[in-house]
């Protein structure tokens, strides 16, 4: 078994902005990402829920595991987006099980 050190970036972002974030992740070229549905939460901007009709008060959760270099680019992008859009961003260290598919 081989492992590689990677950064895990967890992103919470307003539902309307999810597509843009995904687009940017793909532009930067992260090896993958996962979107978790059915999210609700509370932060500086009050309660966000997946159960209200208006997508604007809806929350989405997406995480990506990528190299430190990619992480820096992702964070620079998010730093800007989070000035305008509701959300949060958490970074941590993970090991990735390096199977053939996930070899960079």
């Amino acid at each position, binding site marked *: 078994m081989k492992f590689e050190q990677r950064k895990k970036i967890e992103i919470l972002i307003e539902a309307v902005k999810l597509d843009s974030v995904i687009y940017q992740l793909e532009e930067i070229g992260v090896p993958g990402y996962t979107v978790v549905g059915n999210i609700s939460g509370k932060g500086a901007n009050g309660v966000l829920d*997946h159960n209200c*009709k*208006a*997508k*604007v*008060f809806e929350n989405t959760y997406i995480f990506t595991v990528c190299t430190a270099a990619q992480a820096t680019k992702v964070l620079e992008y998010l730093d*800007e987006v989070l*000035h*305008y*859009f509701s959300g949060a961003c958490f970074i941590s260290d993970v090991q990735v099980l390096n199977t053939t598919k996930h070899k960079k």
Partner: protein
Amino acid sequence: MSYPYLSLIANYLLLLTTTLFCFFFCWIQANINSTSLLINFHTYKLKKIMDIHLAIANILSPPVLFFFLGMVAVWVKSDLEIPKALSKFFSLYLLLDIGFHGGYELHHNGFSWNIVGILGTCFLMASIVPLYAFFILKRKFDTANAAAIAATFGSISAVTFITGIAFLESAKISYGGYMVAGMALMESPAIIIGVILFQVFKSKEATATLNGNNKGVYQRPKWGKILNDAFFNGSVLLLVGALIIGIITGDAGWKAFKPFDAIFKGILTFYLLDNGIVAASRLKSLKGSAGFLIGFSILLPVFNATIAIFVSNHLLFLGEGDALLFTILAASASYIAVPAAMRLAIPESNPAFTIPVSLGIVFPFNVIVGIPLYFYLIHLI
């Protein structure tokens, strides 16, 4: 963490308006009998008042009462809720059904130049409302929020429209299938006008943003995406698609679909129950300029309705049914598509204004007070 103050006032005002309104109609209703002998000779007027009777019966229609029940559920902190998947399905069902039915009617009654005129007026109305709304709102809000709220009012709420149709059906008043096309046309223009207004007027403002550190790198969504979202959003597509399919398939199609259409009122009932829950929760998030917003959100629809009634009576010569639907379209505000589109296109705008207004105030006002009120006015003229 204290319970938002102003939402209490908003709730209270809403209840008050509604109660007063109910009393008003009950008073009419009560007087019908006592005065009926007096005005017996004036049959025409009496018939009108009788119809008002109908209007009251409709405030007491199950869908509207279940809307109330949904609001009550939030007020007593009940855990009643409709699963999101169902609530989405209900709205898809209502759009498909209303589109299909409209198409079927168009199939029968055909297309005329008259209809083109009506549709053109719909489009115009949806383009003008955000314009004057913007300039009124600019007095209290910055450009971003004024544009976003104005666009919200310029667009329409399909479920308010559909509640109006249910109202007409109970009252056995006919309407034209082209009004559904009119609704589809009125959904999107306000989005574009809202964005243009913002682009034009924000340059006149200082470029400093809220955070003061707008590095200018930030890319706004391109017009391509805005237009695509506006004209091909799920609701518009389903509505227009169903309309066209209704036109194509005609009688055979409608006959097969009929039993599914029969549960229409039941689905509407559930949808309004859900909307009652969400509306009451959203009222809570009213903050900031709430006083102004509440007043504005009741006066503007009534103002729009007045114009629409005038237009439909003196310019379009619409029948009562069509006039009511046109008026409802003008008076309603979008609480799904437009706030989301504005959030993306004008991120400086705050959804804490648009949603509580459109879903928390305008929607209940129209469904409970507006529809019968507009009908009353149309009827009197």
